[in-house]
C-alpha cells in the first residue's frame, strides 16, 4: 500500500519539534483536569462506600464534552492553513506541477490533520479508561464515541480545508471556518426555534430536520442513548431517545451520514478550487494577483 506523499511529508513535519508534543501535553492536562473535576462533582461531596456507576457516567460525560469541545477547536485550526499556508509559502504551484491530483493533495492535507486528532484521541484513552473502574460504559460504546469524534474531526477539518482553498489568507479561512462550525452548532438551533416560534408549532414531535446537521445534537443523542435514557424533550424540535418508536433513527446516525456527505462535498469543492485547469477559475476573485504575467 502506498501512503499519500503529502500525508507522509506532513506527518513528518508536524511531528517534529516541541509543538506536537506540547499540544498532546496540553490536551491531556485539559482532559485529566476535566476527569478530576467531573469525578469530584459526581461524588457530590459525600462519602460513598461502594463504587457507583453514576460516577462513571459523570466522568464519561465530562470527558466526552471536553473532548468534543477540544476537537471542535483544534480540527479547523489544523486545517485552515493547509492550502492557504501552501499559497502563502509559495509551495502550492510546486505541488500542482507534479503528477499529484488536486484531490489527493487535499486528502493528504486533511488526513495529516486528522491523524493528529486521532493521536490526541488515542492519547486520551488512558484517561477515559477511568470510567471502566466504575462500570456502566462498555468498550464498544467508548469506541462508538471515538468513531463519532473522528467523523466530527474530519467534518470540521473539511470545513477548514474548504475555506483554506478559497481564501488566500489563513486568518480569513479561520474566521469563516469557526463561523460555519458555530452556525452548525448554534445557528441551526436558533433557526429551528425561530421557525417553530413563527409557525407556532410548539408541539413538533421528534427532531426538526435542520437539527440533524447539528453536531451537538448528534453528540447529545449518542451520549443519551449510551446512558439508555428515555424520551427527552430538550426543546421544541429536539425530542430524542424515543428508540422504541417505529421508524426512529438515532439523530447521531443521521448526523454522522450528513457529516460524511458534507466532508466529501467540501473535499471535492476544495480540490476543484485549487485545480489550476478548472474552467472559469473564479478563485482569482478572492486571491490577489501578482502583477507579473
Amino acid at each position: 500500500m502506498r501512503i499519500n506523499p503529502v500525508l507522509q511529508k506532513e506527518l513528518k513535519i508536524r511531528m517534529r519539534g516541541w509543538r506536537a508534543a506540547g499540544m498532546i501535553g496540553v490536551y491531556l492536562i485539559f482532559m485529566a483536569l476535566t476527569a478530576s473535576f467531573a469525578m469530584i462533582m459526581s461524588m457530590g461531596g459525600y462519602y460513598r462506600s461502594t463504587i457507583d456507576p453514576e460516577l462513571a457516567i459523570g466522568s464519561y460525560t465530562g470527558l466526552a464534552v471536553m473532548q468534543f469541545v477540544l476537537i471542535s477547536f483544534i480540527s479547523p485550526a489544523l486545517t485552515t492553513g493547509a492550502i492557504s499556508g501552501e499559497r502563502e509559502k509559495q509551495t502550492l504551484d510546486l505541488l500542482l506541477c507534479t503528477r499529484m491530483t488536486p484531490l489527493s493533495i487535499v486528502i493528504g492535507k486533511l488526513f495529516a490533520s486528522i491523524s493528529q486528532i486521532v493521536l490526541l484521541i488515542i492519547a486520551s484513552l488512558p484517561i477515559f479508561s477511568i470510567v471502566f473502574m466504575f462500570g456502566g460504559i462498555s468498550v464498544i460504546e467508548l469506541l462508538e464515541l471515538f468513531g463519532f469524534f473522528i467523523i466530527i474531526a474530519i467534518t470540521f477539518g473539511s470545513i477548514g480545508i474548504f475555506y483554506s482553498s478559497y481564501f488566500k489568507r489563513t486568518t480569513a479561512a479561520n474566521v469563516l471556518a469557526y463561523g460555519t462550525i458555530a452556525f452548525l452548532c448554534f445557528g441551526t438551533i436558533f433557526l429551528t426555534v425561530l421557525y417553530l416560534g413563527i409557525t407556532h408549532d410548539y408541539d413538533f414531535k421528534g427532531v426538526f430536520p435542520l437539527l440533524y446537521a447539528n453536531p451537538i445534537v448528534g453528540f447529545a443523542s449518542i451520549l443519551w442513548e449510551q446512558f439508555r435514557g428515555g424520551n427527552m424533550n430538550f426543546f421544541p424540535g429536539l425530542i430524542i431517545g424515543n428508540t422504541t418508536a417505529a421508524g426512529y433513527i438515532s439523530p447521531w446516525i443521521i448526523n454522522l451520514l450528513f457529516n460524511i456527505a458534507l466532508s466529501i462535498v467540501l473535499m471535492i469543492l476544495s480540490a476543484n478550487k485549487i485545480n489550476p485547469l478548472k474552467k472559469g477559475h473564479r478563485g482569482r476573485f478572492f486571491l490577489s494577483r501578482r502583477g507579473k504575467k
Partner: protein
Amino acid sequence: MLKIKGLVKKYGRFTAVNDLNLNVPKGEIYGFVGPNGAGKTTTMKIICGLMAADRGEIYVNDIDVIKNVRKAKEVIGYMPDFFGVYDNLKVTEYLDFYASIYKINAKDRKKICDDLLELVDLQDKRDAYVDSLSRGMKQRLCLARSLVHNPELLVLDEPASGMDPRARVEMKEILRTLKDLGKTIIISSHILPELSELCTSIGIIDRGKIVISGTVDEIMQQVYSKRFIKIKLRGKIAEGIKVLQEKPFATSIREGEDFIEAGFEGNEEEMAMLLKELVMRDIPVISFGQMDGNLEDVFMKVTKGDEA
C-alpha cells in the same frame, strides 16, 4: 520537443498571450525574453499545466499538454520564479518527498537524491533544514527538485534571479551540464548577456507574441541585417580606417582609442582577405574578430524600448 500552436490566454479584456507559436527542438536551451507583463510566466505556467489556456495547442514530446496534462507533467520539470520551502524538512527529505510523488521506489529515490545533490553541489547540505539554506542554495535545490523525475523538458522561470554573480555562474554551469545530458531547457531571464551566452536559441516575446526567434546570430542578422567586426591595433589606427574605407562591405566605421569597429556586409572569405591586407600593409593587428551580438540592443529595438 516543445511545440506551441496559436496559444491564447486572456485575463478579462487583457490578452496576456496572443496567438503564440513556438517550436523548441530537443536538446536546445531556449531563452525566453520579454518585458514584464509580456506573457512569459503565463506561457510557462500553461506549458506546465498550472494554468488553463483559452485556445491553442501545446505538445511536449508529442504529448498533448491540454488534453493529457497528467502524462505531460511526467516529462516536464518546472522551476517557478518565486517559490518557498517547507519548514522542518531536511534537504534529502525535501527531494525524497517530491520523488515519492512520482512513485519512485525508496531505494531509487535515495540514489536520485544523492546524484541530484551532487549535480547542484549541495552534498554537504544534505542534512540541513531547507529553510536554513541561502537563496542561491534554495534555487539550486529547487532546480534539483524539478529534476527528481528525470524530465525531458525543463521550464525555468528566472532561475538566477536574486543570485550573486558567483551563484549565477554556478547555475549556468549546471544548466550546461543538463544540456549535455540531453535535456531541453526553456528559460526566462532578465539578465540578457547571460542568456545570449547560454542559450542555443532565443525568442523575444512582447505583448503576448513572439516577435523574433532564432539563434543569437540569426536574430542579430534579422535585426541589423549585418555583422560587426572589431579590430584591435597597436597604433596606425588611421591607416587601418583607410583600408576599411576602401572596402564596400565595411560600413559604419567607428574609431576607438586602440581599436576600430565596423559593420561588415561581406562573406567570410572577404573577412579573411581584409585581415590579410591589414597585415600586408604592416598595420600591427593585435586581434581581429566578429563582435558578439548585443542582445540588450536587439531587445530594446524589437520591444520598442519597453522595460526588460
